């Protein structure tokens, strides 16, 4: 066995260790440990990606000495490694970009706990990406939920704590449903490992035995994950949680936490239930419908919003709708588009959050649109970054959002039944996106004669500006040379089955 195959396991374990050790460190040291950790894990994930690309197949890593149906396993293929790499990069950039706000908004003696939480959050995300065992997935889903709650409430005002309570209630409902579905699936198949489960499910589906419990279990798992990832009717907690938490948390939550759950759902669809069996149930039509509704209603709520951060948060609801719409197509192309959108949305949404904080900072801390007038001149970097993010969200060519919309449109054309609604809603949603994002961009570049707020220079926030540039580059790279990434996604999805 090659040494590289240890890397997925190492990255999860390293994150857990870093989190545990950080809980005994001072604020500064914990921050350093966290940055080093993110660097190392990025390298490890990159190496795994290269390895899987070279060998052209996925590998299974047994955690312990007991083989397949008895012990825990993790599994890495191209898609897993790519997602892990991407998650690490985004998390690193989000933390760097929000670091100056973190020091202001979190009690000074408790900053180290923030890094403990992010370390463990990263470990849970990696475990969700790599896991090959349903119960491990459940345990790490819980870690993910609790640490996300911690990230929301670490900025302790009434608003965030209330948001955290709402988030927890919805999330725990979701976890309860997920656990129940998982138990039923275990009862029907007798396995907890994904590959063995898939065999049993295929056998059950072929013989028609236990048909109803199987469908109910699939429904429970899907609904649980939908609740946790804030699909449209379950999004009530989202604007408060994203809008009031400290900026790094908002960026991480919107771009990584919900995406981790969605990735788990993809994994379950492909590796536990089987794409065809999942497609035969009517669940994907429901997902499709709610995805479309989310796209419209999320954008409408964003248009109504008067607060820039909450507007971006509502835009997340719309974007999650896109992802579920891709699932709902029930084709390989739709899934590819969804996965690409996961990556592109992660890159764009965290950029928007980080840029928005730069704009509000030079507007006296107010997040109302009226105060943001001309903020793009006072903080040039943030203004440029916000513009790039908005253009990408709207779907301008050159940026990543364009590619994902193109992929969605291509996927829609292939599916004759769902083509018309998908294309119409895609168009409408793009227009709505354009309305609220362009409104903001126009506002931040509206010149004002006299401003009460001073502008900010590059020297003052070097780290922040570098982060923004990195984000912009990431977006443009995803937009211009998207073909290799799309190929990798296709290859990875092929490895799943």
């Amino acid at each position, binding site marked *: 066995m090659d040494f590289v195959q240890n890397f997925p396991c190492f990255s999860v374990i390293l994150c857990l260790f870093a989190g545990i050790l950080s809980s005994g460190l001072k604020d500064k040291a914990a921050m350093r440990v966290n940055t080093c950790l993110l660097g190392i894990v990025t390298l490890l994930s990159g190496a795994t990606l290269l390895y899987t690309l070279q060998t052209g197949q996925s590998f299974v890593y047994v955690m312990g000495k007991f083989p397949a149906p008895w012990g825990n396993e993790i599994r890495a293929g191209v898609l897993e490694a790519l997602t892990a790499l991407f998650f690490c990069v985004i998390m690193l950039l989000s933390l760097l970009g929000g670091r100056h706000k973190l020091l202001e908004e979190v009690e000074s003696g408790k900053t180290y706990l923030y890094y403990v939480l992010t370390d463990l959050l990263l470990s849970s995300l990696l475990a969700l990406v790599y896991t090959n065992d349903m119960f491990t997935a459940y345990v790490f889903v819980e870690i993910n939920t609790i640490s996300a709650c911690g990230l929301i409430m670490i900025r302790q005002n*009434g608003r965030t*704590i*209330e948001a955290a309570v709402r988030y927890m209630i919805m999330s725990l*409902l979701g976890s309860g449903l997920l*656990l*129940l579905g998982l138990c039923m699936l*275990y009862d029907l198949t007798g396995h907890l490992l994904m590959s063995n489960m898939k065999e049993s499910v295929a056998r059950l589906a072929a013989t028609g035995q236990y048909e109803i419990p199987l469908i109910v279990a699939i429904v429970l798992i899907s609904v649980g994950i939908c609740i946790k990832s804030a699909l449209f009717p379950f999004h009530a907690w989202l604007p408060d949680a994203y809008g009031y938490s400290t900026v790094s948390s908002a960026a991480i939550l919107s771009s990584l936490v919900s995406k981790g759950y969605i990735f788990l759902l993809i994994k379950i669809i492909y590796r536990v239930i089987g794409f065809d069996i999942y497609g035969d149930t009517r669940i994907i039509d429901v997902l499709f419908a709610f995805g479309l509704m989310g796209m419209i209603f999320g954008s409408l709520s964003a248009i109504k919003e008067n607060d820039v951060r909450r507007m971006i948060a509502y835009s997340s609801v719309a974007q999650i709708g896109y992802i579920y719409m891709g699932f709902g197509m029930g084709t390989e192309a739709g899934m590819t588009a969804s996965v690409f959108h996961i990556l592109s949305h992660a890159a764009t949404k965290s950029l928007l959050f980080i840029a928005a904080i730069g704009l509000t900072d030079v507007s006296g801390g107010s997040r109302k649109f009226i105060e943001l007038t001309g903020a793009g001149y006072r903080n040039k970097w943030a203004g440029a970054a916000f513009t790039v993010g908005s253009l990408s969200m709207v779907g301008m060519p050159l940026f990543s959002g364009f590619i994902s919309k193109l992929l969605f449109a291509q996927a829609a054309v292939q599916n004759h039944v769902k083509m018309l609604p998908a294309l119409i809603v895609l168009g409408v949603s793009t227009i709505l996106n354009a309305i609220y994002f362009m409104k903001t961009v126009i506002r931040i570049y509206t010149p004002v004669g006299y401003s009460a707020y001073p502008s900010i220079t590059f020297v003052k926030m070097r780290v922040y500006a570098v982060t923004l540039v990195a984000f912009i580059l990431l977006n443009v790279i995803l937009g211009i040379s998207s073909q290799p990434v799309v190929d990798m996604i296709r290859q990875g999805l092929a490895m799943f089955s």
Partner: protein
Amino acid sequence: MGPNLFINYGEAVAMLLFGIGFGNLLLQSNLIKKIIGLNIMDTAVYLFLAEKGYIAGRVAPIVADGVQDMEAYINPIPSGLVLTGIVVSVSVSALMLALTIRLYRRYHTLDLDEISRQLKKEGL
């Protein structure tokens, strides 16, 4: 209706409890009762699992007198899963209770609707 509803009466009770807990979580506006509802929901799932692991006429999976026959013991896997689950649910409820204390200190009520009304009044 399927054939096993009355044979599976334990599971049926677990599902009822799950529904009751779910309802508590959705309908109660008092936070403490929401948390209790959450715990009821979790334990219901564990009851379901434990019922599924039970096999009539067999004993707990602790090797006694060197008997290592599969016919002698019940399925150990559900017990292990529930053991993990119980610890998860106690940590979650501790976290929720801590959140409740903080909310009470800030808003002087345990009613979630009331809290959102106060938030609206603050106009933040």
